[in-house]
């Protein structure tokens, strides 16, 4: 076995057999499952006692509008409101006092309570009254079929976008969904780099803290050492991600099966969707959206995008990992490491923003240049990919990315080797250059 292989093997086995790795790998899916189920579970708990709201309606028009909900029970008491005020009744949570016609005098209704009135109650009362008053107002115009006219005029325009293929054939264009695909992939790359880049840095510093660096340097090429570490940790990351994926799926579907006795899994999924989108999407819309996504996914060249994703994923990881290794190579102390993380994060945040702006104009100059610059290209190019990037741009950007990644790894290997000889001395620039040339 050659040295690179040996280094990868050792690094991988050491990392994967660490207790912390095993613990995190198996605990995270539980956390993830909890993230899905706890909100659902909490939402499904009904507060056992509905609070009582007493409605005093001197007009008699409004009291019947209020229907009991899960949280509030509306009653029309026989006592006067002043009596309640003097001798508070613990049973009644709030008092709605309506003294006159609300259409002519909106200030005629007041909500009293001995406690702070919750947002939910105020909103509910507001909604009920607004809806009723709106209708009453419309009625007062005395125009026949007004309600129907309004319903009809409620137009929601959604233009169809079509892209012409080379041969003039029509393809459904993907204004909304296409960037989504890119963005999801971008986020995967981004997450991966953040999670495992730091690990590369730690690992490069490991030899220094263990003082084994001189032995290693007299046995292996520093470049092999760096590359080995970067590759091994890449595999560690993939292993962890893979296990997380499997475990989360098993856990979530398992618990769905277990808890799902009363509720069908679709309902749960719909509820989950609703939670995520803030309740904006109704169940019907969800499935329609899913259908749309399906359609668009079919229309874009999924195979090409996936293979590009892999190329950029690997390239992006290599590049950033090599930067991290350069930092690790030039540092002596673990404590300094934290400081150097900041510029890395800034660089990546910039890439993410560039990616988002590129979404608005995927062929603009920002998108073009940022998909050539290696530090931003993995992210920006992923966003642009669904929009048919010219082949030469793609090839150029991939080549630049990989060449830069390898060059940085090479430089960081040099830095690493010089680092052990410094003993607190600052290397001069001339010395650094000389070092870069020495084999």
């Amino acid at each position: 076995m050659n040295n690179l292989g040996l280094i990868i093997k050792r690094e991988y086995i050491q990392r994967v057999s660490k207790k912390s790795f095993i613990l995190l790998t198996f605990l995270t899916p539980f956390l993830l499952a909890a993230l899905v189920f706890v909100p659902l579970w909490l939402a499904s708990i009904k507060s056992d006692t509905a609070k009582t709201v007493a409605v005093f309606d001197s007009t008699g028009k409004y009291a019947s509008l209020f229907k009991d909900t899960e949280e509030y029970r509306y009653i029309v008491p026989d006592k006067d409101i002043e009596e309640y005020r003097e001798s508070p009744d613990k049973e009644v949570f709030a008092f709605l006092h309506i003294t006159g016609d609300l259409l002519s005098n909106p200030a005629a209704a007041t909500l009293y309570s001995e406690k702070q009135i919750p947002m939910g109650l105020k909103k509910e009362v507001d909604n009920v009254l607004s809806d009723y008053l709106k209708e009453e107002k419309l009625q007062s115009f005395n125009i026949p079929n007004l309600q129907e006219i309004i319903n009809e005029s409620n137009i929601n325009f959604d233009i169809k976008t079509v892209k012409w293929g080379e041969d003039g054939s029509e393809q459904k264009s993907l204004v909304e969904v296409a960037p989504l695909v890119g963005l999801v992939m971008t986020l995967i790359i981004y997450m991966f780099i953040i999670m495992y880049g730091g690990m590369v840095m730690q690992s490069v510093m490991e030899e220094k803290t263990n003082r084994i660096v001189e032995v290693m340097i007299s046995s292996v090429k520093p470049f092999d050492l760096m590359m080995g570490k970067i590759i091994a940790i890449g595999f560690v990351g993939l292993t962890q991600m893979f296990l997380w994926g499997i475990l989360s799926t098993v856990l979530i579907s398992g618990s769905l099966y277990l808890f799902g006795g009363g509720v069908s899994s679709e309902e749960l999924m719909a509820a989950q969707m609703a939670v995520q989108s803030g309740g904006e999407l109704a169940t019907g819309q969800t499935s329609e959206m899913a259908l749309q996504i399906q359609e668009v996914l079919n229309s874009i060249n999924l195979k090409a995008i996936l293979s590009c994703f892999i190329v950029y994923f690997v390239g992006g990881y290599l590049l950033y990992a090599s930067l991290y290794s350069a930092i690790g190579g030039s540092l002596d102390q673990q404590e300094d490491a934290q400081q150097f993380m900041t510029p890395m994060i800034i660089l990546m945040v910039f890439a993410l923003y560039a990616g988002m702006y590129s979404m608005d104009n995927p062929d603009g100059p920002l998108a073009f240049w940022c998909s050539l610059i290696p530090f931003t290209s993995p992210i920006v190019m992923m966003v642009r990919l669904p929009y048919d990037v010219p082949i030469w741009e793609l090839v150029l950007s991939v080549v630049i990315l990989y060449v830069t990644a390898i060059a940085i790894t090479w430089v960081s290997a040099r830095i690493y080797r010089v680092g052990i000889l410094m003993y607190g001395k600052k290397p001069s620039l001339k010395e650094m250059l000389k070092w870069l040339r020495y084999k």
Partner: protein
Amino acid sequence: MYFLETEDVVKQYSGHLALNKVSIHVPEGKIFGLLGPNGAGKTTLIRIINRITAPDSGKVFFDGRESLPADIYQIGYLPEERGLYKKMKVGEQAVYLAQLKGLSYHEANTRLKHWFEKFGIMPWWNKKLEELSKGMQQKVQFVTTVIHEPKLLIFDEPFSGFDPVNAELLKKEILELKQAGHTVIFSTHNMASVEEICDNIALINHSQVVLSGEVNEIKQRYKTNLYTIKVTVESGSAYHEQENKYYSVINMKEFPDGFVIQLKKEPELSNSELLRLLSSQFEIIRFEEELPSMNEIFINTVSQSK
């Protein structure tokens, strides 16, 4: 035949000259002592030989030709600053390091088992390194240095951290390695060990070689023409001091079993001539030339070259 040579090696660190035209000649199959006070430049020279750092000027010759990057695989290097992976199991990491030096997994295992048995550290094979005592870790480190049987072995302060028993064991191993034909460079402050095991030395002080050559030859060069003889009581008490141009008596002490006399001879007189002169006067029990110890030579040379 020299196995390793350096020729006018110069190394400048910012504002400080670490090595100034250093030339050393290490004969094949011998033990070469690289001596010098702290900060003289020994470790820098070793790193240049190991190709960890490059000389600013000058050349390094390995096995008769200029040294190449691949030569490091024929060097076993025990750095002064020891270290191994703390969290890794001892056996596992010894095998890993041996494999990095080009041994097959199987070969590495066999040889390591042999060495571990020899050093009595076999029971620690499956322990993590951090569970071992420092001396034990040093043994492991020594084994990983020699395991690939390199032609050239470089030990930087090999005895530091060893108790006398283990230092003796190590010394024996180093001598055995020499017997097996390895060339050894070894840097130390421990002059007693130099006298015991080194064939040749180079003494570096203030970035320069101030003394080099075979240990015996150097001792001859620094000899003081002082002798100690022991003679019987009868011949000693019969002795009357008289001037002569060959030697002078410096000191004479009486002991129950005889006299111990310290004398200085003239440089041109050979030992056997001196002995002949003395034997005509005394009944000699013991005759010994007082050669300076390496320790004295070291201290003298270093303080002179200041």
